Structure formats: C-alpha cells, structure tokens
C-alpha cells in the first residue's frame, strides 16, 4: 500500500478556494485518493490544521475536523517515537514541527507532499518529497512517456 503524508500547507490550500494553489491541490487529492492508499497524519499536522481553522472560522468544531481526517492513519507522539525521531533530526536543519513531519515520512516510508519550498528542500535529504504539482506531472509522464 502506497503511503502519503500531506503537509498542513496542502490541507489548508485544499480548504481555501481563494488560495492560488487550491485548484492544483484539489486535482492532486482527487487524483491520488483511492482505497489502496494510506494517508498518514502526524498529530502535529492535525493540530496545525485545526489551529489555523479555528483562528479563521468562528463556527469551527473539532468534530468536523475529526470527520475530515476519518480513515487517515494518525501518528501520535510518544517517548519511544520521539527518541527515534531525534536520531533522524540530525540529518537536516528544520524547526521541530517541520522536523517531526519529515521524520514521520522517513519512518513510515511515506511520500511527503508539501507546497512549502523550505520544507521540501530539507525533507528531500531523507524522504521522497514532492509538491502536488510535481507529483501529478511525474504520474502523467509515467502514463504517457
């Protein structure tokens, strides 16, 4: 089963139709989503998406966010996982929340998908990392070489 971790920037652009990357994100999510793939969500992504939304949306409800992430595999942090992550953190220069997402991608052997160039550059050192746009371009090239 192919696994993906979508960075918070991908979820947030998906939920904002005014975002310049919204259409590309929507196309990406619609194209890759199938029962055969596993969306893994580090708990930090869940929290970031929720925190951004509740600052913007007066009607924000936790239950709606839980439903949105239904069927996703949530990675909770515990001390054992944190120790493994610390050894991976040495390989790049990122702040802790970025580093947790990259370490999860490495540990889960998942493709990290982000719109954030800074995260992309560092994450590439240890994990398969792409933007939704490059992922779709490569997939299209594979189908029509």
């Amino acid at each position, binding site marked *: 089963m192919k696994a993906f971790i979508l960075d918070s920037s991908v979820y947030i652009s998906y939920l*904002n139709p005014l975002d310049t990357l919204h259409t590309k994100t929507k196309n990406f*999510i619609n194209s890759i*989503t199938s029962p055969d793939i596993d969306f893994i969500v580090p708990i930090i992504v869940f929290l970031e998406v929720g925190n951004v939304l509740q600052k913007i949306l007066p009607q924000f409800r936790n239950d709606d966010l839980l439903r949105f*992430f239904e*069927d996703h595999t949530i990675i909770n942090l515990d001390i054992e996982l944190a120790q493994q992550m610390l050894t991976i953190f040495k390989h790049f220069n990122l702040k802790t929340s970025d580093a947790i997402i990259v370490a999860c991608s490495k540990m889960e052997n998942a493709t990290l998908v982000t719109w954030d*160039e800074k995260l992309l550059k560092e994450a590439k050192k240890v994990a398969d990392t792409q933007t939704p746009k490059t992922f779709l371009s490569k997939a299209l090239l594979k189908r029509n070489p």
Partner: protein
Amino acid sequence: MQTQIISVKELRNNFPKIRKALKKGVDYTLIYRSKPVALIKPIGDMPRKYKNLLNPSKSLMFRSKISAVELIRRERDE
C-alpha cells in the same frame, strides 16, 4: 432498508427486475445450494474510504487571500 433472499437461478433468470430493485435500495442475500454465499447491495451503500476528505464539510471551508504556506509558516516560525 429491505433485504431479500434470492437463489442463483432467480438471479440469472430475473436480473433486469433485480437490478431495478437494487436501484431502489433493496439488498439481497444470495443463496447457493441452500447456503448464503454473498450479499448484493446497491453500490451507493458501500462505505467509501476518504469520503469526508473528498467532500469536506462546508464548515471547514474558508476564504482567505493569505496563502496556505504563509498561514502555516506563521504557525511554525512565530
């Protein structure tokens, strides 16, 4: 939701009628040699993985000209 019992022979002989009933929401338990072997359900009733991701609740949608990357960077860099 109704569930009806149907044999393989009935399925073979009455498929157009059964297809119409499936469209109306009828489920079937398929019997072969007096034993149930399958459930036949309208496809719309099948649980769809990631249905809430593909059709996010309107209550989660927002409109902002600030880019997603910027919104997340503010969370991470502040």
